[in-house]
């Protein structure tokens, strides 16, 4: 045809503002979608709605006070945030942490991983419409919160670690309760799997959705399950062991296709591996002190350090500079896994439908508190 006929219908793209108040953007994430019908042409991820300036705030707090600020970053995995910070400062001060404390830290971190993954599984399944899994997963998360409450009194923001060790030893009988939880959890994982893993609708909604190749995943700086879902072996627990991870046996599940289903399978396998680690740690829990030799006034010598741990969401790193004179860090910077993984959202959603957008926000597992800090 020589000339293109004028379109009969209005063919403008629809700009849809998803969030910051939307049931599936997990907090206050805002995604501005450009839609052709229901197909996403472009997406703009807007963050910053709960930026509290934790990094800057930390530069004006003394070293111990910062621990409770780290609680507020990834608030569904506060213990791993505590762990990452405390280990960074210990590295800076060259403090030796007693073995018992390192074991207990490992147990707490792995319990926290299960709790965080429970929350992820529940909300992810809910986003795809399977609402029963949500309540099942929260039921088990509750047991972990109970364990944490027994340990430190808090259920969400634990403030559960100190520089050089732990503030408290576990109460009597706590290890038996933790072991009982492992037994319960093992059964419940298969309950989740029964509802989802071989469900036709679940397969159709997650397979081939949000495929990301290994090269792209590395290029985007993804970490944690989204990176391993694409088949890249990177787990800080194995590569640069911290706490007591070098003493335990566990596997790192890897995906092959890099789609949403692979990432789902990986996290489910991580449940099992976490239980395995907790059991080993409880079996071999050494006696001894829980606090290392730390000066009363914490004041690391001048220098800088970076230390990363494997949080449930991925690689959580702290970069801290101390000037050696004041009782607060000169520079405090966090490498939050959620923030880095959120980079992957735009390339993931382009070309998919609106219904997939919520599934993809779910699959990268972001906590906005950690993205914005």
């Amino acid at each position, binding site marked *: 045809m020589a000339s293109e006929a004028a379109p009969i219908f209005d063919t403008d793209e629809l700009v849809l503002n998803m969030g910051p108040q939307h049931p599936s953007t997990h907090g206050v994430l805002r995604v501005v979608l450009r839609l052709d019908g229901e197909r996403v042409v472009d997406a703009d991820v807007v963050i910053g709605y709960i930026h509290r300036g934790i990094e800057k705030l930390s530069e004006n707090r003394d070293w111990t006070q910062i621990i409770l600020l780290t609680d507020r970053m990834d608030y569904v995995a506060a213990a791993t945030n505590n762990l990452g910070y405390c280990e960074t400062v210990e590295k800076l001060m060259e403090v030796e942490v007693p073995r018992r404390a390192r074991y207990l830290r490992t147990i707490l971190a792995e319990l926290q991983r299960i709790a965080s993954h429970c929350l992820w599984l529940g909300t992810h399944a809910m986003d795809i*419409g399977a609402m029963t899994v949500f309540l099942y997963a929260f039921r088990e998360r509750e047991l972990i919160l109970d364990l944490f409450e027994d340990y430190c009194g808090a259920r969400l923001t634990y403030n559960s670690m100190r520089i050089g060790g732990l503030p408290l030893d576990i109460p009597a009988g706590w290890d038996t309760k933790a072991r009982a939880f492992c037994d319960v959890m093992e059964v419940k994982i298969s309950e989740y799997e029964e509802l989802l893993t071989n469900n036709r*609708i679940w397969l159709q909604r997650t397979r081939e959705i949000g495929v990301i190749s290994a090269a792209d995943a590395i290029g985007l700086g993804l970490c944690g399950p989204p990176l391993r879902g694409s088949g890249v072996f990177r787990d800080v627990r194995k590569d640069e062991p911290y706490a007591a991870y070098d003493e335990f046996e566990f596997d790192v599940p890897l995906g092959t296709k890099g789609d949403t289903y692979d990432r789902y399978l990986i996290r489910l396998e991580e449940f099992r591996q976490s239980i395995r680690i907790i059991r080993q740690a409880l079996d071999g829990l050494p006696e001894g002190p829980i606090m290392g030799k730390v000066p009363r006034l914490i004041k690391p010598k001048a220098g800088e350090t970076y230390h990363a741990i494997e949080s449930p969401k991925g690689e959580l790193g702290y970069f801290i500079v101390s000037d050696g004179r004041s009782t607060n860090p000169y520079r405090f910077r966090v490498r939050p896994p959620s923030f880095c993984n959120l980079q992957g959202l735009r390339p993931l959603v382009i070309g998919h439908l609106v*219904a997939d957008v919520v599934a993809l926000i779910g699959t990268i597992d972001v906590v906005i508190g950690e993205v914005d800090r």
Partner: protein
Amino acid sequence: MIETVVIPLLKIAVLLNAILVSVTFMTLLERKVIAWAQSRLGPMRVGPYGVLQAIADPIKLILKEDITPARCDRMMFTLAPILSLVPALVVFSVVPFGGDALFYITDINVGLLFVISVTSIGVYGIILAGWASNSKYPLLAGLRASAQLISYEIAVTMTLVSVILTAGTLSMVGIVESQQEAGLWYGFVQPVAFVLVLIGGLAETNRAPFDMPEAEQELTGGFHTEYSGMRFALFFLAEYANMIVISAVVTVLFWGGWLRPFPSVDALVFLDFIPGWTWFFAKMFVFLYLFIWIRATLPRYRYDQLMRIGWKVLIPIAIVNIVVTGIVKVVL
């Protein structure tokens, strides 16, 4: 006069009240059943075991402020909820709850056709609501609803043709009576058709796993995002009334309506002391329960996947079913 006006009007009044009351209790049933599936208790505060929740909810909705968004199409905005509730209620005029003329309002000779036509009007309510809200999420929901309508209505209607072929009548009473003559519920004669109608019924009522037009997690409530108060309640009533309609239609077409189990087995004749409408409601309840059960269990389809199922799976099966039914009918 009494025969033609008063008695039908009385029947209509009783039926409407019965439906609307049962709809409010359906919401309670749904919340309870889903709660049990999810190891919760569900509503427990209002009355013993929360049974009065079904009354507290409508009162709350009536008392709430009814917001009309600025710059919406006011007339359509009000019309939409009415348009989705009324057809659902109208369908009951041809549903026979029992064999006696007392138990149905009317028996027209094109009963099934009437059911199909009236139920498909209901979706206009959703499309109009999406359009009139002047908001993007409801608009997307309206688009989804129309796509969904085209995909499943054709399949369901074609499937019903095979039932009509088997029964040789379009009258709802006639279909049950022909099941009595055949001594067999059509669920056993036409199992494929039954499954197709059930799937189509789920889609028709916007129930999980086909609840795309109201997908809360994607479209923040879909077509009723902008609705509140009683107008929202009307949509709610419509959804549950539609569930009851589909259960009733499936019961009539495939599970022998008011007939007792195994109507041809004389050994079970003692079961006749149970009135027919009890059987009817018991069967209907099974399907209502099934709908809720499915909602508690399954994730949601994407709307392109629903269309694929509709066009590539349901319609071909429905056509083959018609052909097979026709051949069997001619040969036998």
